[in-house]
């Protein structure tokens, strides 16, 4: 009952023209950037972030959520029609979508993908509504030690998500934590690492860092890379079929597998949609109903992958809203909207600003409906966007990065920061070093420092509170287990070489 009340209040909160326009614009932009070659939701959201400052919080969040969700749908178009996934999470859709399109069933493949993504998006939004409140109730029992350990566990999960790049991810996380400390210390008013520069006193702002690392670095790579060639003949065949829209419901097992993995993995920090889609795809291969081999146009492959892909969005928002811990780089930037408006994500948000929580839930539901509607009426012209030269797009993004960084504070200082981090992003890409952990570290650094100081201050420097309190002790145990896992698995492999 409480859930339906929240939903009703959420829809009421969306009932202003500003929010409605933001929602539609975000959804349309999201689809477009999903189709455009090389442009992802991260770049778009980073560039759009400064423009959300002047908006009502829910309007800004709806705009960015529209881009976030729309890109999942748009990515399927290029995966199916030109065998070029816009995002890593769309690769699995390509495996069966492209062969299906090659066999003259492009409309069936697109319809399967869109409807599966729609079901994923709706279910994940409902899950957010059902799970967020109990989870916030649980998180309300968190004191400073639990908050410290939740962030430390999130940081370790981020590192683990990069698998064999664990060390470099942790290095960048450390740099992110450090950057969050630059400026005046809120506790003691001492100037930390400011080099006497007035602009740095208030800290290193998130917006130009995100614009530089995601926008500028991506644009520089796009303008300096050769233009890819592809077989564009299938683009003419873009469209949707009503029979294809109903087809995903013939495969409830594949759908359930995708929904389960997408929602569950979406909650884990930084693990992201790419892992959930691949796991769902391989799981769907077991006990599949359709006899077409996987990789040659099996509809269940598309259904499982797209359901998993789009059900991540709700899961990723759960940790942001209940714990104030972003699940990935995009939700970290979306968290920037909360911070700018003085809204502190976490359990208290449910008491202080319920309209935001309910609004996010309602806007996720509406966004998915709007996106599906837009795709039905415009998929054919949209698919033609795949023709756009990535170099032209790169130039446009570079010019937009300038405005995006400048307009955050009407200051050239922000553009300089964006450029510095753009160069860093390019160098890191060259050296195969991930940059997303840096942003996540920057976002979580303030809270980590404040709660760590609070815990250690109360215990006179003793670390015992971390293992004396039950929730914190469990979080410590999971963190240690995650860190030690390679040792355990190595020992197990030595003792049982044949398993």
């Amino acid at each position, binding site marked *: 009952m409480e859930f339906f009340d929240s939903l009703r209040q959420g829809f009421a909160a969306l009932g202003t023209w500003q929010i409605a326009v933001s929602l539609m614009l975000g959804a349309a932009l999201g689809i477009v950037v999903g189709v455009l070659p090389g442009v992802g939701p991260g770049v778009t959201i980073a560039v759009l972030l400064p423009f959300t400052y002047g908006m009502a919080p829910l309007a800004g969040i709806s705009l960015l959520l529209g881009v976030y969700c729309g890109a999942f749908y748009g990515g399927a178009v290029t995966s199916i029609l030109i065998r070029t996934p816009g995002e890593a999470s769309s690769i699995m859709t390509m495996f069966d979508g492209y062969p299906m399109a090659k066999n003259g069933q492009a409309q069936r493949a697109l319809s399967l993908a869109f409807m599966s993504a729609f079901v994923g998006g709706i279910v994940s939004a409902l899950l957010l509504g059902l799970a967020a409140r109990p989870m916030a109730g649980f998180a309300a029992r968190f004191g400073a030690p639990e908050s410290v350990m939740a962030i430390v566990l999130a940081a370790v999960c981020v590192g683990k998500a990069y698998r064999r*790049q664990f060390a470099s991810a942790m290095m960048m996380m450390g740099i992110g934590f*450090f950057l969050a400390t630059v400026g005046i210390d809120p506790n003691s008013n001492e100037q930390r690492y400011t080099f006497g520069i007035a602009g740095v006193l208030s800290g290193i702002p998130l917006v130009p860092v995100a614009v530089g690392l995601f926008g500028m670095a991506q644009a520089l790579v796009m303008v300096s890379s050769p233009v890819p060639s592809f077989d564009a003949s299938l683009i003419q065949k873009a469209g949707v079929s009503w029979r294809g829209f109903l087809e995903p419901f013939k495969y409830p097992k594949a759908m359930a597998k995708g929904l389960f993995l997408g929602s569950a993995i979406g909650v884990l920090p930084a693990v992201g949609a790419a892992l959930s889609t691949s796991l769902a795809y391989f799981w769907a291969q077991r006990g599949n109903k359709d006899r077409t081999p996987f990789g040659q146009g099996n509809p269940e492959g598309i259904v499982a992958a797209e359901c998993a892909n789009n059900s991540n969005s709700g899961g990723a928002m759960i940790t942001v809203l209940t714990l104030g811990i972003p699940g990935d780089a995009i939700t970290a930037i979306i968290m920037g909207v909360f911070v700018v408006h003085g809204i502190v994500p976490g359990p208290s948000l449910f008491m202080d600003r319920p309209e935001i929580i309910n609004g996010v839930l309602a806007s996720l539901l509406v966004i998915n409906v709007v996106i599906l509607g837009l795709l039905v009426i415009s998929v054919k012209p949209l698919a033609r966007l795949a023709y756009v030269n990535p170099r032209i797009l790169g130039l446009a993004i570079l*010019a937009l990065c300038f405005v995006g960084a400048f307009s955050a504070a009407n200051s050239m200082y922000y553009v300089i920061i964006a450029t510095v981090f753009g160069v860093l992003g390019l160098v890191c890409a060259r050296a195969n070093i991930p*940059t997303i952990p840096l942003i996540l570290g920057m976002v979580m650094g303030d809270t980590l*420092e404040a709660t760590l100081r609070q815990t250690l201050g109360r215990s006179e420097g003793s670390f015992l509170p971390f293992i004396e309190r039950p929730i914190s002790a469990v979080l410590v145990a999971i963190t240690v287990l995650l860190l030690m896992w390679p040792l355990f698995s190595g020992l197990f492999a030595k003792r049982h070489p044949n398993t």
Partner: protein
Amino acid sequence: MVLGVSLAAATVLMATPQLITPYPAQAVWFESAAFFPGVSLALACVAGLFELYQRRSSVELADSDELDSSAANMRQALGMLALFGLYMLAVPWMGYLSSTWLFLLASGAWLGMSRRATLSLSVLLSLAMWLVFVKVLKVYFGHGWLM
């Protein structure tokens, strides 16, 4: 690059007493303003050294799922960065519209795009951006001697 980041983190860590003003020498370690930055820098330094060890020991490392720059021409990218630097200087001096137009024109030429594409892109995009950001969203870029 990894070595550079590790060394930079170690250097800043060592120089922390000079980089925090006034340095809280009397504060207990857990209340000191230097505590958390120190932990963060130590994490960056140690993780960087570990990554370096893995790379030197030829431990198989995965490619990042993030930005793929393997096919990028660094000379072109650096040239674009230089043009962007000039663009940053030109905006307050010349004005937003004219400097954006010139930046796009010069960039198109540097990237070897056709004259027609460069000219149409630079004119259309600079005009559209000027209209949206300066006229509609009222972003103030200062008074240049041109528009």
